[in-house]
C-alpha cells in the first residue's frame, strides 16, 4: 500500500517538473486582433483569455501531449496539438467567423416581418394590434404597411396592384381557405381570426420563398403562440358583442378555449348608418387551441374554430325607386389544423401539418336561393438540413385538395369541381459570409383538374453593409389557379402567372427603421370573361398586366419619448386586361398614390396609450358608361383619420376606445350604374360609400389570473 502511494506521489511530483509558456496573438481573417478568446489546455484547469490587443500568455506546469483550444464568441473553435516540454511555444491562430443567425444578413426583399424573436423585423406583434384604424382586425393593421392599398368597400388585403385573391394566408404554415368572413357586395369584411392567437407574422409583398405557392402577389404567414405563459381567463365586453377565453397551462402542454358572440343591432340602433340594414351582422364563434411539447424540442399544435353568422341588407339599384334588392346571407365556417415542429439529430429539423377549411355561404337574393360551399385540405411536410453553418437545404411536399360546389337551390341546379394539386419545393440557402447570402428555390406543381404541370424558379440574395443597412434582391415566378367561381365555369383553365423583381433596402438601428423598395411585376394568363357570377360566359385566358412602383417606410421609436410612429408611402402603376375589360386598364382596387401615418404615444400620467392613424390615397378608378372608354373616371381621394385611446387603470384591466373616420369624410369607393339608360339616355349612378360615416368601438378587457399584471393588450 505504501508503495502504491509512493508511485502516486512520484507521478504527481513528476507532473510539476517543467513549466512551459505558450504565447501569441489571436487574429481574425481580416487581420484584426480578437480579445476575450478563451485559451486552454483540454482536460485541465490550465487556461487564460486573450487581452484587448489579442495577445495571450499561458504558463503551465503540465508536461506531455495536450490539445490547445481557442474559443471565442462568433468564431469557430480551433485546436492544436501541443507537446509541453518546458520550452516556450508560440501560436498565432487566425480565427474564422461563424455565421451568426442573430447578426447575419437576412433577405428582406418583399418581406415585412413582425416578431419578438427575430431581427430585421418591421414591427412587433403588439404593434400590429394597436394600430388605431385596424379596430382589432389584423388585416386592418397590414393596410398601414407599404405595398398595400386600402379598399374600404372590401376590407381584404390588396397588394401592389393585385386583387384580394392573390394573397394567400397561412396559419403555422398551413393554408387557410376563406380567411375572411363572407359579406354582401360593397360591405367590408374582416379576418376571422383573433389577433391574440398569433405571436408573429411574416407578410410578403412579393419575391417570397419557394415554400409558398398558390399565391400570385403576396403571402401572409401567421404564427401562433407556442405555449401561453400562465393560466388565465379573459373577459371582453365590446360595443358589438362579448367573449370569454380560458387558458390552462401545464408543464408541457396548454389548452385555450374561447367563445365570442357578436351582434351589431344595438350599436346600429345608436349610431347612424349609411346602409339600409334589415338585420345587422351577427355571429358567434368558438375555438379550441391545444399545445403539446414533445421530446426535447418538438411541439404539436392543434387548433379548431367554428363559427356561424349572417346579415340582411337592402341594396339600392341605381335608376330604380324603393329599397332595392334584399340580400339575406348566412355563413358557416370551420377551420381545423394540426401542425408539428421537431428538431432532429445532425442538424435536421422537420415541420408540417394538415389543415381543413370548410366555408358554406347561403344567400337569398330576392327569391333566388344560392348555396356555395368551398373546402380546402392542405397537407405539408418539410425537412430542413443544415450541412454547415453556411449551407442549408429545405425540401417539402405539399398537397392541396380544392373542392367547390355552387348551387341555385330554388332551381335545383348544382355544379361542383374537385382539384387535387401536388407540389414539391426545394430551397437552398448559402451564406458566403455574415454579410452575403444567396437563396435559390424551385417549386413544382401539378393540378389534376387543369391537367397542368408547372415549375416556378425563385432566387434572392442580400448583402449587409458595414452600417448594418442591407440590400436585397429577389426575383421569381409565381403561379396560382384562378378563383373557384371562375374555375367552376371553365374547369380546364390554367394557372395565372406572375413574375416579380424586387430591390429592397432595409436599415434598423437605435429604434429607427428605414425600408425602401422598388418592384416590377408582370402578369400572364389573366382570365377575362363576360357576364357575372353564376353566368360567366366566354371565359378566356389571354389577359396580361403589370404593376411597377416603389414604396418607402420609416419608423421611429426614439426621437420623441414614449412615442412610436411610422409612415408609409406607396406608388403603384398598375394596368391589366382582366375580368370584363377588353383592354389594359388601371384596376379599381389599385390607387396610384397611397400613404399612411400611424402614431402611438404613451402618457404615464393618464395610464393611457393614445393612438392616431391617417390614411390617404388618390382615388379609385371606375367606368362611367355615360362616357366612352373603360375605367374612364376616378373617385375623389380616400382619407381616413382614426383615433384610439387605451386606458389601463389597473394592470389587468384595459378600456379601449377607438373611432374611425373622425372627420366624417364621405369616402367614395366607386359608383354603381343602372344596367340600362333612363329616358334621357343617361345611365343613373349610386356612389359606393362607407357602411357608416364612423365606426366607434368601445371595449373592456379584463384578465383574471394569479399574476395581476397580465392583461390582454393583444386583443385590442
Amino acid at each position, binding site marked *: *500500500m505504501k508503495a*502504491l*502511494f509512493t508511485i*502516486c506521489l512520484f507521478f504527481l511530483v513528476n507532473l510539476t517538473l517543467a513549466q512551459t509558456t505558450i504565447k501569441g496573438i489571436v487574429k481574425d481573417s481580416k487581420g484584426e486582433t480578437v*480579445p*476575450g*478568446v*478563451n485559451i*486552454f489546455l*483540454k*482536460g*485541465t*484547469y490550465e*487556461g*487564460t*483569455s486573450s*487581452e*484587448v490587443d489579442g495577445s495571450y500568455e499561458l504558463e503551465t506546469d503540465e508536461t506531455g501531449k495536450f490539445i490547445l483550444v481557442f*474559443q471565442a*464568441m*462568433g468564431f469557430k473553435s480551433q485546436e492544436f496539438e501541443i507537446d509541453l516540454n518546458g520550452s516556450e511555444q508560440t501560436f498565432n491562430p487566425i480565427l474564422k467567423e461563424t455565421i*451568426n443567425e*442573430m*447578426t447575419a444578413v437576412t433577405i428582406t426583399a418583399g418581406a415585412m416581418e413582425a416578431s*419578438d424573436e427575430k*431581427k430585421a423585423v418591421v414591427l*412587433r*406583434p*403588439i*404593434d400590429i394590434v394597436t394600430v388605431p384604424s385596424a379596430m382589432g382586425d389584423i388585416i386592418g393593421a397590414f393596410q398601414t404597411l407599404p405595398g398595400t392599398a386600402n379598399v374600404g368597400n372590401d376590407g381584404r388585403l390588396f397588394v401592389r396592384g393585385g386583387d384580394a385573391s392573390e394573397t394567400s394566408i397561412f396559419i403555422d404554415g398551413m393554408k387557410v381557405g376563406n380567411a375572411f368572413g363572407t359579406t354582401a357586395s360593397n360591405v367590408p369584411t374582416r379576418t376571422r381570426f383573433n389577433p391574440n392567437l398569433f405571436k408573429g407574422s411574416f407578410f410578403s409583398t412579393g419575391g417570397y420563398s419557394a415554400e409558398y405557392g398558390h399565391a400570385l402577389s403576396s403571402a401572409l404567414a401567421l404564427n401562433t403562440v407556442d405555449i401561453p*405563459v*400562465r393560466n388565465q381567463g379573459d373577459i371582453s365586453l365590446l360595443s358589438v358583442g362579448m367573449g370569454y377565453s380560458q387558458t390552462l397551462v401545464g408543464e408541457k402542454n396548454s389548452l385555450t378555449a374561447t367563445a365570442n358572440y357578436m351582434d351589431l343591432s344595438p350599436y346600429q340602433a345608436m349610431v347612424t348608418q349609411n346602409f339600409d340594414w334589415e338585420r345587422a351582422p351577427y355571429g358567434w364563434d368558438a375555438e379550441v387551441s391545444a399545445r403539446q411539447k414533445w421530446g426535447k424540442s418538438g411541439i404539436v399544435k392543434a387548433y379548431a374554430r367554428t363559427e356561424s353568422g349572417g346579415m340582411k341588407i337592402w341594396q339600392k339599384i341605381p335608376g330604380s325607386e324603393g329599397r332595392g334588392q334584399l340580400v339575406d346571407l348566412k355563413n358557416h365556417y370551420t377551420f381545423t389544423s394540426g401542425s408539428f415542429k421537431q428538431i432532429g439529430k445532425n442538424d435536421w429539423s422537420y415541420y408540417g401539418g394538415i389543415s381543413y377549411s370548410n366555408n358554406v355561404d347561403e344567400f337569398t337574393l330576392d327569391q333566388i336561393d344560392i348555396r356555395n360551399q368551398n373546402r380546402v385540405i392542405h397537407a405539408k411536410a418539410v425537412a430542413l438540413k443544415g450541412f454547415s453553418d453556411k449551407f442549408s437545404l429545405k425540401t417539402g411536399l405539399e398537397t392541396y385538395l380544392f373542392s367547390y360546389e355552387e348551387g341555385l337551390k330554388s332551381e335545383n341546379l348544382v355544379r361542383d369541381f374537385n382539384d387535387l394539386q401536388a407540389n414539391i419545393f426545394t430551397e437552398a440557402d448559402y451564406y458566403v459570409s455574415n454579410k452575403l447570402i444567396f437563396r435559390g428555390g424551385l417549386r413544382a406543381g401539378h393540378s389534376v383538374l387543369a391537367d397542368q404541370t408547372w415549375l416556378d424558379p425563385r432566387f434572392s440574395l442580400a448583402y449587409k453593409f458595414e452600417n*448594418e443597412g442591407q440590400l436585397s434582391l429577389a426575383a421569381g415566378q409565381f403561379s396560382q389557379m384562378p378563383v373557384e367561381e371562375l374555375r367552376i365555369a371553365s374547369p380546364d383553365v390554367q394557372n395565372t402567372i406572375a413574375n416579380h423583381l424586387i430591390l429592397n433596402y432595409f436599415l434598423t*438601428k*437605435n*429604434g429607427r427603421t428605414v425600408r425602401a423598395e422598388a418592384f416590377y411585376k408582370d402578369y400572364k394568363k389573366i382570365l377575362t370573361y363576360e357576364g357575372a357570377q353564376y353566368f360567366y360566359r366566354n371565359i378566356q385566358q389571354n389577359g396580361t398586366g403589370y404593376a411597377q412602383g416603389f414604396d418607402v417606410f420609416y419608423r421611429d*421609436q426614439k426621437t420623441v419619448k414614449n412615442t*412610436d410612429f411610422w409612415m408609409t408611402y406607396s406608388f403603384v402603376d398598375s394596368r391589366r386586361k382582366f375580368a370584363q375589360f377588353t383592354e389594359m386598364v388601371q384596376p379599381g382596387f389599385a390607387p396610384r398614390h397611397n400613404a399612411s401615418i400611424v402614431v402611438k404615444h404613451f402618457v*404615464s*400620467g393618464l*395610464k393611457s396609450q393614445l393612438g392616431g392613424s391617417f390614411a390617404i390615397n388618390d382615388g379609385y378608378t371606375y367606368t362611367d358608361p355615360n362616357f366612352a372608354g373603360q375605367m374612364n373616371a376616378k373617385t375623389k381621394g380616400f382619407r381616413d383619420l382614426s383615433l384610439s385611446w387605451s386606458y*389601463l387603470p*389597473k*394592470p389587468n384591466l384595459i378600456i379601449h376606445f377607438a373611432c374611425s373616420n373622425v372627420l366624417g369624410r364621405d369616402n367614395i369607393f366607386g359608383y354603381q350604374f343602372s344596367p340600362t339608360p333612363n329616358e334621357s339616355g343617361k345611365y343613373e349612378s349610386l356612389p359606393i360609400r362607407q357602411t357608416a360615416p364612423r365606426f366607434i368601438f368601445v371595449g373592456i378587457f379584463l384578465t383574471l389570473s394569479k*399574476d395581476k*399584471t*397580465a392583461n390582454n*393588450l393583444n386583443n385590442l
Partner: protein
Amino acid sequence: MKKHTLIIALLMFVATFANATNEAYEKAMHKEIQAFGKAGPVSEVQKSANAFARIAEMNAGEWLPDYYAALAYANMGFRTEGGLEEKDGYYAQAKKHIEKAKAISPNNSEIVAVEGYIVMGELAADPNSRGQSLSGLAMQTFGKAIGLNRQNPRAIILMAQMEYGMAQFFGQGPEKACGLVASSLELFAKEAAEAKEGSIDPLWGKGMAEEMKERTCK
C-alpha cells in the same frame, strides 16, 4: 486477504483522487469567484466567463461553473456600451450556459433566478419593443424562482426591480417593490451570517438591494 487489501487500497486511492479533484475544483472556483467579484469592465468579466466555462468543461456534473458563466455573460450584456446586437450576443451566450446548468440541476431556484435575470437584460436592451413580450416572462420566471426557494434573496431583489418598473409604468407607488427589497436584505444578512469561509455558493446581489433601498425606498 491480500486481495482485500488491494481493493481497499484502490478504493482509498480513488477516494483521495476524487477528493483531490474536488479540492482543485473548489479552489479554482473560489479563485474565479473572487476575481469575478472584482471584475469591472466587460473585458475583465469576459475573462471570468472564460474561466468558468473552462471549469465547466472539467466538471460536467457541477452546475455552479455554468451558472457563474451565465451570470458573467449576463453582466456583460448589462455593462457593455455596445449596441443591441452585441448585447444580444452576450445574452445568447448566457442562455447557453444557463441551459446547461438547468440540465444538470433542474428546479434550482438560483439557476431560475439567473434565467430571469437574462430575460431582464434582453428587456432592458430594447424596452420599447420588448417590453410587452418580455416583462411578463421576466416576472413569471422570478416568481418561479421564488416559488422554488422562498429564502433566495437574489430572486426576491430581481423581482423587486421588475415590480418597481411595472409600478412606474402604471404610475403606482414603490411600496410593493420596497417590501421585497426589505425582505431580500433580511435574507442577505441571514445568508452572510450562515455562509462558510471559502463557500462557492451564490452570494451576490446584496449591493443591488442596498442601492435600490437607497435610491427608491428612503
